[in-house]
């Protein structure tokens, strides 16, 4: 059994093709793993019967030689993706009982390629959070634990908002996990759980059928065990979709080829920028030194690393925490109790709205709706929203300027390793700071990837981030392949199924 669970998706696909395992065996192993690790609260809904049906269908297609790219690969779906006939709540009480009559484009792509659906996975409510503690289903526990130091013995956060997805991946209760990333929600949990997480170029993966948080920032992407799986899954997830006006109609570079090229030939001549502004106050020494190590790994593979400046970086977080709540306050207006989800009756229409939304939304969601409503209000709009949009443009310009000279940027993924559950949710500001390295890529709409690069002194995973220009996911995959090889990260979480 442990052999099956330790296989990456690429390896499992090979084994399925070679008939050394069947899709049913693989799926059964993951259903059992999810049973065994249920305590981490990663799944909010299990669809084991459906998974078995899908696995049987995969075995038939494998037998007929009609296997798809992800044939028979078990996938746990973040609850932000609408799944036809399967309850979808965005981990919010307000959507309790909502069963979409439609499938998101991204998950449809996965099923079309033969993937098997294990269930729906916990996340921060409406993807608003960095610790997976705002979920109406309760917090998710990180399968990783500190081996020493002050965090030893404490339950840790898997990060957020795709905390359940990262926890399920680290616990090996799913083999692939599609996430969504609005300000770091794929990369930060991937970093906290020793996984690869990519936020593609804005528009690469259709937003159609994904519960919206902040439309101009939301982007789906893969969370995987390794870089090759990331290339594989990204190839399946992305597509041009006429049902999303912001979808990009440009072909995805051949990511599997990019991976193989980097592994075989290195990245000779690739220019990597090291942004000065990503050195932040209070960043642990081990993160600074890991960052420096990462630079050396890339140089060893032939890259040229140069210091660069992104002068408006310090304004990214404040701009993000205006734009994202502004869009969210409008996007979440539809949860009004009129058509679907939960309704609490009231004496009047306004009273029904107040009671429904008061009961249905958690504190963090309410906080962001209030912030967003405030910054869009008459008299404040110019001072906040318009100013934030101007900052956003300056940040985009910063990236455009440096990408005239370099092919990618190397930064830490997060300013710390995973922290204890309950530690930061008391202080929203310090939770917001978690996104300091990840938010700029969302504001600029450019792709970024987090790769596990080492363990902290406490024995917790740390990630390095690569950021590339628009549409250059292939550059990310190449750089990530080098970092992955050099880091040789082969640690497994103590809470992983076996």
């Amino acid at each position, binding site marked *: 059994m442990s052999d099956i669970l330790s296989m990456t998706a690429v390896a499992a696909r090979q084994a399925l093709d070679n008939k050394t395992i069947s899709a049913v065996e693989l799926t059964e192993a993951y259903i059992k793993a999810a049973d065994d690790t249920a305590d981490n609260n990663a799944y909010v809904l299990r669809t084991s019967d459906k998974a078995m049906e899908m696995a049987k269908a995969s075995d038939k297609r494998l037998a007929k030689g009609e296997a798809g790219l992800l044939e028979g690969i078990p996938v746990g779906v973040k609850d932000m993706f609408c799944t036809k006939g399967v309850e979808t709540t965005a981990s919010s009480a307000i959507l309790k009982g909502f069963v979409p*009559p439609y499938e998101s484009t991204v998950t449809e792509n996965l099923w079309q390629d033969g993937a098997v659906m294990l269930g729906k996975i916990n996340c921060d409510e409406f993807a608003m959070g960095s610790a997976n503690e705002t979920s109406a289903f309760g917090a998710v526990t990180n399968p990783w634990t500190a081996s020493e130091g002050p965090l030893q013995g404490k339950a840790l956060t898997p990060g957020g908002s795709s905390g359940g997805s990262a926890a399920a991946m680290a616990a090996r209760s799913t083999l692939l996990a599609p996430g969504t990333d609005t300000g770091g929600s794929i990369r930060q949990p991937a970093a906290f759980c020793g996984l690869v997480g990519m936020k593609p170029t804005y528009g690469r993966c259709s937003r159609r059928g994904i519960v919206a948080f902040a439309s101009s920032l939301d982007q789906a992407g893969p969370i995987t065990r390794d870089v090759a799986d990331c290339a594989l899954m990204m190839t399946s997830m992305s597509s041009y979709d006429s049902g999303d006006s*912001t979808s990009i109609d440009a072909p995805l570079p051949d990511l599997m080829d990019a991976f193989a090229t980097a592994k075989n030939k290195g990245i000779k001549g690739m220019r990597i920028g090291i942004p000065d502004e990503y050195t932040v106050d209070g960043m642990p020494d081990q993160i600074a030194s890991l960052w420096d190590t990462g630079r050396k790994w890339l140089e060893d593979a032939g890259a040229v690393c140069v210091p660069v400046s992104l002068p408006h970086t310090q304004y990214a977080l404040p701009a993000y925490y205006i734009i994202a709540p502004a869009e969210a306050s409008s996007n979440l207006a539809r949860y009004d109790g009129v058509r679907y989800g939960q309704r609490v009756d009231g004496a009047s229409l306004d009273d029904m709205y107040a009671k429904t939304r008061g009961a249905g939304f958690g504190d963090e969601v309410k906080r962001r709706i209030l912030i967003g409503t405030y910054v869009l209000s008459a008299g404040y709009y110019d001072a906040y929203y318009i100013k934030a949009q101007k900052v956003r443009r300056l940040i985009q310009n910063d990236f455009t300027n440096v990408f005239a000279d370099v092919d990618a940027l190397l930064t830490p993924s997060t300013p710390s390793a995973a922290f204890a559950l309950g530690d930061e949710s008391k202080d929203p500001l310090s939770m917001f700071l978690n996104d300091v390295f990840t938010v700029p890529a969302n504001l600029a709409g450019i792709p970024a990837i987090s790769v596990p690069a080492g363990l902290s002194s406490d024995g917790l995973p740390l990630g390095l981030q690569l950021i590339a220009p628009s549409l250059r996911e292939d550059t990310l995959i190449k750089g990530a392949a080098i970092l992955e090889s050099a880091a040789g990260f082969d640690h497994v979480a103590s809470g992983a199924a076996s």
Partner: protein
Amino acid sequence: MTDIATPPATSPLVEGRTGQWEVVIGLEVHAQVSSQAKLFSGASATFGAGPNEHVSLVDAAMPGMLPVINRFCVEQAVKTGLGLNAEINLFSVFDRKNYFYADLPQGYQISQFKQPIVGEGSITITLADGTTRDIGIERLHLEQDAGKSMHDQHPTKSYIDLNRSGVALMEIVSRPDMHSAEEAAAYVTKLRSILRFLGTCDGNMEQGSMRADCNVSVRRPGAELGTRTETKNLNSIRFIAQAINSEVARQIEVIEDGGTIHQETRLFDTSTGQTRPMRSKEDAHDYRYFPDPDLLPLELDAAWVEHLRQNLPELPDALRQRLTDEFGLSAYDAALISEDRQTAAWYEAAAAGRDAKLVANWMAVELFGALNRMGLDLADSPVTPDQLGQLVDRISDGTISGRIAKDVFAFMLESGDDPDQVIEAKGFKQVSDTGAIEAMIDTVMAENTDKVDEYRGGKDKLFGFFVGQVMKASKGQANPGVVNDLLRQKLDG
């Protein structure tokens, strides 16, 4: 609105108890785009379906469902802008107008706030006395309609019909250039006719395809603009005129009684013909407009716009000009006949190769009068264009007199028969046979020898009496010209 409207030289003034008042009116017209599908979804936009039969996942604001612009609706808006002589903005932006209501599923309406698709333009209106005026258009923008709430279907619940949710509307905003209900009515009439000629809106106000919000204020002539009120959702030209007149009277009375006008939204009560307050400025929503992040800015290709411009159909002004130039019609008849394309086509078919002015007269007076009485549209007229043309031919060639033609027309309306059939069957043929008429004249003169003597003695006015007697004897069928000539010969000779 900070602009001060320049009053025309002949700005009509209203007499109050304390002096004269000038009225300033601006209109916001919501015109439903003629389109099979909605503005941002593929659901049908047609009228008359059962409740909630035309609702897509997007229209119902299901989670994760996204708007995608309907290219045809954009084309319709651009054509309308071109028809309004307006600037077409090649770059425009869709914004979200945020407010909560049960029939607004998204919790926001997608509209265009700061950067509309169409900028400034103007249209020319024609008043009843034949004078024309240009009314400025401030902008036209595309937006989606909300659904419909029904509060009278259940004792405690409201029902929602989302068929209209997402239907494309053009909001056409005028400058505050109008100064009377008559001008406002003429503006809406002209606007509707332009939209119908373009085929961009069917203009059916009773079905809600077109409705107007009227901004009205009064001021002393030449003074600063007064505080305006906005009367919402007027769905007929008659109601627009009534609402303006009642609002003008109310505002003048309030000010003359020493009160002040409050900026507020009002509703028109069709049963009383009066307006009443709906909500004051203090209750106004903060709509929190911001660019819709689900939609990219709308960028139009200049060549595509030019192509649409080149292929615009003939518009009412051009048609009116042609009717005046080619057919010699009066400005009033030309305006009446060019009001909609069907009327114009009907007229052109009837008038081809004939006395065009006479046809216009017959159409404007007799035909429209009869259709009005019968409650019929021109499309349902029992008399065809060709039949009306034949009738005019029979007047022109002297077969029947104009007076008899009215009787013939009455029978045509009833039976749908050709005029020649009616004339033949009912014996309406005009008598031009001089022998027969001479015989009648002789009889009349013989029966009235005293009057003949008086006439010959200098009482010229009696000529009319003899004409009348002869026509009476002929049962109206004698040719009046022939009767006149022969009578004069016999009486004077």
